[in-house]
């Protein structure tokens, strides 16, 4: 048998939430081999995950428990519980930016250096600052936060400024529900993000580096903080002969602060409202100093760009979108998690081949979170790059990709996204503040079965006006989920309004709940668990009392309770 060198336990947030903490403690006490904490390798569906490193290569185990039987199996390199990565995922994935994620200890400076870390910084320091900017321009790297602005150009603007101080900001305010690329990178390879920032500081002549991270990511903040201390110890924070100020700032829970001018206002200690551009931040940013903002994933790409050279970097991807992109896959698919694919991979390849979704069970995919739009299955041969997605009324966004199954209601999905965005509107622009509220109320009416046909036209009319009448990315994209679903699933809106029917049986106001006596074994679990006493002793559900909470459906061991179309259920009065 191969000899075990060490066992790596994935302890990023996703792993910890699945119970990796208990695994770590148990293995440390009982395994008798070296245990190492690592970040996330992206296979979140299989957490807790461990990697057993042997002299004959690595073996991965999934759904690991902190129990003796599980540990014994792993120490014996047993066949059960191994993580089998599907050949199709191997085929389409290209691990470049995430090459080290989940493979090395995130808080070990030496581990990062042993893998070639900070080699790109060293190389950059042998070049002139202008050469570094040129290299980034040559790579074709575009902002990974969603905007897609060429990174090299932004850096060139900042580098050209003469100012008392120049500011470089890492935007780690990953607020899109469903997106966790940046969290994973900061938790798993904080040094890679910092190396990108240090190269940026050298190229642009920045004096102060901010990392603006949402407070909901405590582990990411902790790892970045440790990594900053380590680079200070090693003197890497001295760039261009100046000691850099590197400051972590925690956000305070405002989605709009992902927008650059709002983020800057927040960093100044103010309400995070965006402002009109120009002046652009590279002209007047934080406290009026020239400022460049780049996303976590963008910075994590920089060591690759410099390390392998811009031309080599540009070999991967499409004509206008270079390199790879991380996507956070979630929703109705078999393998949710973090993936990295070359730009230009099609949505179908990502959803079906990498994510393992069942083609018969998928209706659409939502890209770009609440600011994005849905893309129906019929268009899944669209390649993921900034421009193709924009053309469909969706956006690349930061990389959240949520698979929507055939049993989901698109009107309700749109309502959900607007519930989020209308509350996150900062209130500065009237169209966004009032318009989003009106759109949201209209959708609420429709899912409640109180919509009128004119409501559909109203939504289609108001959406583009909000986009035009808003200053920042939030308002300019917030109507997207409605406009995209109206474009591809107008029939569902019409059904809700005209027929008062939700075909997916999702909208509570448009469904009843019914118990099938044929399947019922009279175990009374449903009766005992019903919070409102809607189920009688002879197992009839009174839909007048029922709140459609799904509890009886969940607890029934025989699947005897189900949602049915409105009118098919029983009403006591």
């Amino acid at each position, binding site marked *: 048998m191969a000899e075990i060198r060490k066992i790596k336990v994935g302890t990023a947030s996703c792993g910890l939430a699945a119970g990796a903490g208990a695994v770590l403690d148990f293995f440390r006490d009982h395994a008798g081999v070296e245990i190492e904490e690592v970040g996330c390798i992206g296979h979140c569906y299989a957490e807790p995950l461990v990697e057993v490193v042997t002299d004959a290569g690595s073996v991965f185990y999934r759904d690991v428990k902190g129990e003796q039987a599980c540990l014994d199996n792993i120490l014996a390199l047993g066949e059960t519980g191994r993580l089998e990565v599907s050949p199709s995922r191997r085929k389409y994935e290209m691990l470049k930016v995430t090459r080290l994620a989940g493979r090395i200890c995130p808080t070990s400076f030496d581990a990062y250096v042993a893998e070639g870390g900070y080699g790109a910084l060293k190389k950059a320091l042998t070049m002139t600052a202008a050469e570094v900017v040129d290299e980034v321009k040559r790579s074709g790297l575009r902002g990974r936060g969603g905007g897609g602005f060429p990174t090299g150009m932004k850096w060139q603007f900042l580098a050209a400024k003469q100012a008392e101080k120049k500011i470089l900001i890492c935007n780690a305010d990953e607020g899109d529900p*469903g997106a966790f690329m940046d969290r994973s990178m900061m938790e798993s390879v904080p040094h890679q993000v910092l190396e990108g920032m240090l190269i940026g500081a050298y190229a642009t002549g920045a004096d102060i580096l901010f990392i603006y991270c949402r407070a909901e990511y405590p582990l990411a903040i902790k790892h970045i903080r440790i990594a900053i201390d380590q680079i200070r110890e090693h003197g890497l924070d001295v760039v261009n002969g100046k000691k850099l100020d590197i400051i972590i700032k925690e956000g305070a829970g405002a989605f709009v602060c992902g927008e650059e001018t709002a983020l800057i206002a927040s960093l100044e200690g103010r309400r995070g409202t965006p402002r009109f551009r120009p002046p652009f931040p590279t002209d007047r940013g934080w406290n009026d100093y020239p400022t460049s903002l780049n996303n976590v994933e963008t910075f994590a790409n920089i060591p690759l760009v410099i390390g392998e050279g811009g031309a080599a970097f540009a070999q991967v991807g499409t004509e206008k979108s270079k390199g790879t992109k991380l996507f956070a896959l979630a929703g109705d698919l078999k393998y949710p998690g973090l993936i990295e694919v070359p730009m230009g991979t099609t949505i179908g390849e990502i959803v079906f081949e990498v994510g393992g979704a069942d083609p018969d069970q998928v209706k659409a995919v939502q890209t770009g979170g609440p600011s994005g739009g849905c893309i129906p299955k019929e268009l899944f041969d669209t390649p993921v790059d900034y421009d193709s997605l924009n053309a469909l009324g969706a956006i690349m966004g930061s990389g959240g990709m949520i698979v929507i199954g055939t049993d989901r209601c698109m009107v309700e999905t749109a309502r959900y996204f607007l519930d989020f965005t209308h509350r996150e509107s900062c209130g500065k622009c009237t169209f966004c503040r009032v318009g989003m509220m009106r759109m949201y109320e209209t959708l609420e009416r429709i899912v409640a079965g109180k919509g009128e046909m004119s409501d559909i036209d109203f939504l289609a009319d108001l959406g583009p006006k909000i986009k035009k009448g808003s200053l920042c990315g939030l308002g300019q994209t917030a109507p997207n989920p409605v406009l995209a679903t109206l474009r591809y699933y107008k029939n569902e809106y019409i059904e809700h309004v005209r027929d008062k029917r939700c075909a997916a049986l999702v909208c509570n106001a448009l469904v009843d709940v019914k118990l099938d006596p044929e399947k019922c074994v009279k175990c009374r679990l449903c009766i005992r668990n019903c919070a409102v006493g809607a189920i009688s002793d002879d197992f009839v559900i009174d839909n007048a009392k029922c709140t459609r909470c799904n509890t009886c459906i969940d607890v029934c061991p025989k699947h005897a309770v189900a949602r049915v179309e409105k009118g098919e259920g029983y009403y006591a009065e």
Partner: protein
Amino acid sequence: MSDKFAYLSSVERSRTYLIKGLQTVQAHDGYISDAAIEAIAAYFSVPPVDVEGVVSFYAQFKRTRPGKYKVAVCDGTACHIKGSISILEWVGTELGIKPGQTDRDGLFSLETVACLGCCSLAPVMSINGKVYGKLDRKGTVKILKEYRKNG
């Protein structure tokens, strides 16, 4: 400034650090009291109304005292699709409170959050920062009862 907020001196006294100051107070007291608003305004030399403006803008800041156990039910996209509304109902029923409220004993408070970043484990909730994933009704109630038992 009253002695109660003397710990603020660990925060740099510049407007840029106003949010940090608020976060420090909230970490210490669990919420931002009226007295805290006044103290922070004095510390950073800004009008209290400015401080109130910042507090009201950011979802993180609480103006009411939270419970010993802060339950946050995630209603991010993935969790919503996986039924976070039901989780919220079960938690609300079990604790007898609505989001934004604290129970009478001051033991539990409940809130919804946009996304805890653990979407692949949806639906999730967190209690004092500890995340619980793949929740169902039984599991959710059991977790809460455990906390209640420990008091």
